[in-house]
C-alpha cells in the first residue's frame, strides 16, 4: 500500500508520448504511415459494469485522473459501456471531439474487444485504433477488498492504454479464399457423424482412419446406456451411409503424414498404408477389370498364421489376413505385415480373376487440399495394469470394461455367454470397480473423471442381472455421476433391479490361487466398516486417455493440448469445437472424455463450425501479422525455425535473401519480432514503439 501511495503522487504531467515518438524508429520501409503524424486525440471511456467495477473503485477519481493524461481529449463514464447507449457515447464522442484513438476501460478484451472495435468503426475511425484497459478481471474482481489500490491500478492501466492508443495505426484485415473441401481425421462415431454432416451440406469430405475399418470404439460396445439399444445396430446404418456417401472419400488404413498451409488452404499428405489387398478400384487401375477384394474370406480360411484380434481385445484369434469383424466398412481384407510369412496361400486361393492380393504392396502418399479440418481421434483405455493393487494382467479374472463389453456381446468371442477367463464358468458374484485409475493424483492414474464409466458400469450390472438370474453385481463407487438425460432414472432402475452399491474405493485385490476367486478389500464408508468380499470376477472401469497417436496428429495440425493430453478447445464454454489454429476443429472424445450423445453433439457442432468458412468462401484474418522490414533484414533466417506456425520463409529478392511472411499463417505471436537481432520485423498492432510507449507510461508514471 505504501508503495502504491508514492506512485499515486507521481502523477503524469509532461508529454511522454512525444518523446517516445522521437525515439521510435518509424517503419518507413513498410511505408504505410506518413512520418508526420497528426496530434493524437484519445478518448477514454470508463465502464462501471454495474457494480462489478464501480463497486470496487472510485470511478470519479479515475475519470479526473484520466483527464490529466497526455493526449487525452475526452473522458466519459457509463454504467454499461457495452450496451447500445454506451456504444453510442463512444460513437458521438469520436465525431464531436475529432478523436484519433479510443480507450475503453472495462472488462477483458476476450469479452468485448469486438464490440468496441465496431463502436470505434461506427464513429468513423479504423477499428484497430482502439485499445482496451482491463479494469475488471485483472483489477476490480481480484482487488475487491482494496478499493484504493484498485483505483490506483485502474489509473495505471488507463495511462498505459492511452500511451498505446496514441501510436496505433490503421490496419486492414486480409481476406483469403477457402477450398471447398474438408478433412475429418478419425472415423469413430464422432468422425463419421462430422463427415456425414459435412457431406450432406454439399462439402467434399476426406475421412481418414488409421485402422482398416470405420466404426471406432462404439462398434466394440454391446449395448448403449440408458436406452439399452444395441450399439452395432444403431451404428452400422451410419457406417453404411458413410461408405455410400458420394461426398465422402473414405481413406481407411491411412495416416496423416504432413499438413501445410492455413485456414482455407491446407495441403495434407496422407500415407496410404500398404494393405496388401487391392480394392476393386485399385485393381481396375492396375488393369485387372472386375478384380479386387470382394470380402469372400477364402484367403482367411487358408492363412496359417494366428494372431490375437485387437477388436476383440485379444480374446479371439484372427489370421494374418483379416477383417476385424463381420460388419466392417469397407469390406476389404487387410494383411498384417508384421506377422505375414508370405506363404502365398492366400494369393493362390484368391485366384487369377480377382488377383486382389499383392504381398509386396508399398505405402503410397496422396496429397489433398482442404479448407478446414476436424480432428476426431478419440480415446484409448488407460493401461490399468499400472495400478498394480488391482492385479490386472496378474489375476486372470480381473478384466477391463471393454473386455466385458466383448464378452457380453452376442457377436463377441464367447457368443455373448458371460464367462470368467480362468475356467470358462459363469460368475455368480461380480465386482465393478469405478474410478479405476480416474480421479487419481498419484501420477500413475489420471486426475480427471472419465465421465462415462458410472453409466456403462450400471449398464453392465443390468446386463448381468438380465442375462444371468442369480448373479449378484456389486458396484464399488465413490460417487455415481448420472448427469445426462434419463441417466438418473437409469441409475434408479438398476438399483431397483438389485445391483448392490458400495460406497468405497477398492484398496486392493488378492487372488485365491486354488479357486482363482478374488478377495476385494474396501471400506463401506456408509456403514463405516471395512469389507472383504469374495467374488468370481472383477471388472475395472478403467480410466480413458487420448488415443495413442493423438500427440503426433495434433502437432501436424498445430493444435495445443491440455496438461493431461486432451486436445485444447479455443474456449471451454463458448468455443468448445474450435481450436487456437484457425480452420481446425475438434469432435468427440479427443477433446475430453465424452459419452455417445455428447460425442455426436460435439461432432455436429464441429461439422457446423467447419462448414462456415467453406460456405462463406473466404475468411478474414486478424491483421496482427509480422512484416519484414527488408532494408534491415540480414537474411540470417534464424526466425524461420522459431516460428511455431511455419509462416516464415527466406526468399531471394533483388539478389539477396530476405525473410517473407505468409500473412494468412502468421498468428502475430511475436516470437520472431522479439528475437530478430536486427530489429527487422514489425509486429502489426504490437510494434516496438507502441510497446515501448506502454512500458514508459507504466515505469515513469507519465514522467520523463
Amino acid at each position, binding site marked *: 500500500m505504501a508503495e502504491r501511495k508514492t506512485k499515486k503522487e507521481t502523477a503524469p504531467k509532461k508529454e511522454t508520448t512525444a518523446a517516445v515518438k522521437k525515439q521510435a524508429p518509424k517503419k518507413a520501409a513498410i511505408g504505410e504511415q506518413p512520418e508526420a503524424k497528426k496530434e493524437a486525440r484519445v478518448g477514454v471511456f470508463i465502464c462501471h459494469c454495474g457494480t462489478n467495477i464501480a463497486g470496487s473503485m472510485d470511478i470519479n477519481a479515475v475519470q479526473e485522473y484520466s483527464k490529466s493524461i497526455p493526449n487525452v481529449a475526452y473522458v466519459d463514464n457509463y454504467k454499461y459501456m457495452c450496451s447500445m447507449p454506451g456504444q453510442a457515447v463512444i460513437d458521438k464522442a469520436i465525431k464531436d471531439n475529432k478523436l484519433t484513438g479510443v480507450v475503453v476501460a472495462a472488462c477483458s478484451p476476450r469479452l468485448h474487444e469486438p464490440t468496441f472495435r465496431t463502436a470505434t468503426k461506427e464513429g468513423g475511425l479504423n477499428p484497430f485504433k482502439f485499445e482496451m484497459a482491463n479494469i475488471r478481471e485483472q483489477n476490480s474482481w481480484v482487488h475487491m477488498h482494496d478499493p484504493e489500490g484498485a483505483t490506483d491500478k485502474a489509473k495505471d492501466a488507463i495511462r498505459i492504454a492511452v500511451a498505446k492508443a496514441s501510436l496505433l495505426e490503421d490496419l486492414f484485415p486480409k481476406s483469403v479464399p477457402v477450398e471447398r473441401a474438408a478433412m475429418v481425421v478419425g472415423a469413430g462415431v464422432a468422425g463419421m457423424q462430422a463427415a456425414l454432416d459435412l457431406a450432406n451440406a454439399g462439402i467434399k469430405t476426406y475421412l481418414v482412419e488409421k485402422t482398416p475399418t470405420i466404426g471406432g470404439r462404439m462398434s466394440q460396445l454391446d449395448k448403449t446406456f440408458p436406452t439399452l439399444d444395441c450399439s452395432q445396430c444403431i451404428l452400422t446404418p451410419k457406417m453404411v451411409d458413410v461408405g455410400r456417401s458420394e461426398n465422402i472419400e473414405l481413406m481407411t488404413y491411412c495416416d496423416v503424414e504432413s499438413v501445410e498451409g492455413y485456414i482455407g488452404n491446407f495441403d495434407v499428405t496422407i500415407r496410404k498404408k500398404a494393405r496388401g489387398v487391392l480394392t476393386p478400384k485399385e485393381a481396375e487401375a492396375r488393369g485387372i477389370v472386375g478384380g479386387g477384394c470382394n470380402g469372400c474370406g477364402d484367403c482367411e480360411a487358408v492363412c496359417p498364421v494366428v494372431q490375437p484380434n485387437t477388436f476383440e481385445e485379444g480374446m479371439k484369434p484372427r489370421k494374418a489376413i483379416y477383417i476385424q469383424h463381420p460388419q466392417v466398412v469397407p469390406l476389404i481384407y487387410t494383411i498384417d505385415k508384421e506377422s505375414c510369412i508370405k506363404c502365398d496361400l492366400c494369393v493362390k486361393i484368391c485366384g487369377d480373376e480377382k488377383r486382389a492380393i499383392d504381398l509386396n504392396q508399398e505405402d503410397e502418399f496422396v496429397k489433398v487440399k482442404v479448407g478446414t479440418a476436424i480432428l476426431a481421434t478419440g480415446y484409448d483405455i488407460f493401461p490399468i495394469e499400472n495400478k498394480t493393487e488391482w492385479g490386472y494382467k496378474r489375476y486372470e479374472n480381473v478384466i477391463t470394461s471393454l473386455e466385458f463389453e466383448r464378452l457380453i456381446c452376442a457377436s463377441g468371442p464367447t457368443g455373448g455367454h458371460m464367462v470368467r477367463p480362468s475356467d470358462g464358468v459363469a460368475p455368480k458374484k461380480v465386482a465393478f470397480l469405478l474410478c479405476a485409475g480416474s480421479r487419481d493424483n498419484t501420477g500413475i492414474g489420471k486426475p480427471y473423471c472419465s465421465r462415462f464409466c458410472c453409466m456403462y458400469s450400471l449398464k453392465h450390472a443390468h446386463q448381468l442381472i438380465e442375462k444371468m438370474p442369480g448373479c449378484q453385481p456389486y458396484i464399488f463407487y465413490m460417487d455415481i455421476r448420472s448427469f445426462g438425460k434419463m441417466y438418473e432414472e437409469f441409475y434408479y432402475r438398476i*438399483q*431397483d433391479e438389485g445391483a448392490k452399491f458400495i460406497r468405497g474405493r477398492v484398496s486392493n485385490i488378492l487372488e485365491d490361487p486354488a479357486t482363482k476367486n478374488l478377495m476385494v478389500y474396501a471400506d463401506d464408508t456408509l456403514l463405516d466398516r471395512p469389507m472383504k468380499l469374495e467374488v468370481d470376477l472383477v471388472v475395472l472401469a478403467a480410466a480413458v486417455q487420448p488415443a495413442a497417436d493423438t500427440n503426433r496428429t495434433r502437432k501436424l495440425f498445430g493444435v495445443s493440448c491440455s496438461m493431461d493430453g486432451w486436445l485444447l478447445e479455443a474456449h471451454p464454454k463458448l468455443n468448445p469445437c474450435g481450436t487456437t489454429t484457425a480452420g481446425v476443429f475438434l469432435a468427440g472424445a479427443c477433446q475430453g472424455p465424452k459419452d455417445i450423445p455428447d460425442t455426436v453433439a460435439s461432432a455436429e457442432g464441429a461439422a457446423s463450425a467447419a462448414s462456415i468458412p467453406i460456405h462463406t468462401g473466404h475468411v478474414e484474418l486478424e491483421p496482427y501479422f509480422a512484416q519484414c522490414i527488408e532494408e534491415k533484414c540480414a537474411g540470417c533466417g534464424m526466425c524461420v525455425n522459431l516460428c511455431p506456425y511455419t509462416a516464415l520463409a527466406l526468399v531471394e529478392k533483388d539478389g539477396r535473401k530476405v525473410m517473407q511472411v505468409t500473412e494468412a499463417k502468421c498468428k502475430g505471436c511475436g516470437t520472431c519480432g522479439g528475437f530478430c537481432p536486427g530489429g527487422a520485423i514489425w509486429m502489426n498492432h504490437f510494434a516496438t514503439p507502441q510497446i515501448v510507449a506502454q512500458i514508459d507510461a507504466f515505469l515513469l508514471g507519465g514522467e520523463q
Partner: protein
Amino acid sequence: MAKIKGYPEALEAKLRDRYMYGDDAHPEFTDSVEKISMTIPHMCYQCGTCTASCPSAPRSSYRIRKFVRRVVLGLETEALTDPDLWLCTTCYSCTDRCPRDIAPTDVIMAMRNLAFKRDIIPVNFLKTVQAIYTTGHGVPNNDVNRAARVKLGMDADPPTTHTYKEFIPGIQKILDYYKLKANADRIVKEREG
C-alpha cells in the same frame, strides 16, 4: 489392578474382527423387511436426510441411515441386536422427507417385529404390553394426572377403558390371540426372575 477394571474388556472389543464378509449378507432378511414394511429400503441412496430429520439422532447413537444400509446389505444380526433399534420415536419425520419415497420408520418397525421373534426387546416395551393387557393403556392414568384433570374441570378418568372397564376383556382377547401377553410375561420373568 482395580484401576484398570473394564479396560481389557473394552480393548478386546475394539480389537475384534470387524470385517464385513460376503457371507454376512442375508438377502432373505432384506426381503422379509421389505415384505413386512411394505416399503423399498433397497432404493436408499444414503443421502442422510432421515438421520438429519431424526429427533433421536442428536441425543443418542441411533442412526436410521445406518439401519437402512444394514437392511440393504442383509446384515441381520448386526441390525437386530443393536439396542439403538428401539430408540426410534416413530415420529415419521424421516418418512415425510425421504427423497426416494422410502418409509424408513416402517423399516424400523419391521425390524422390531423380526427382533421380537428372537425375543430381542427391551423390558420397558414388554411392561407396556402388560399395562395394556391389564388397563387397556400403555401409560395408565395415575393420581397426579387425575388431580390435574379434576382441576381442569374434567372427569378424573378419560372415557376409555379406565371408565368402561367392561371393554378390557376384548383387548385381552386380541393380545392373547397373538400371544403377546404370554410372551411378554415369559420374557420379563426370564430377565427379572
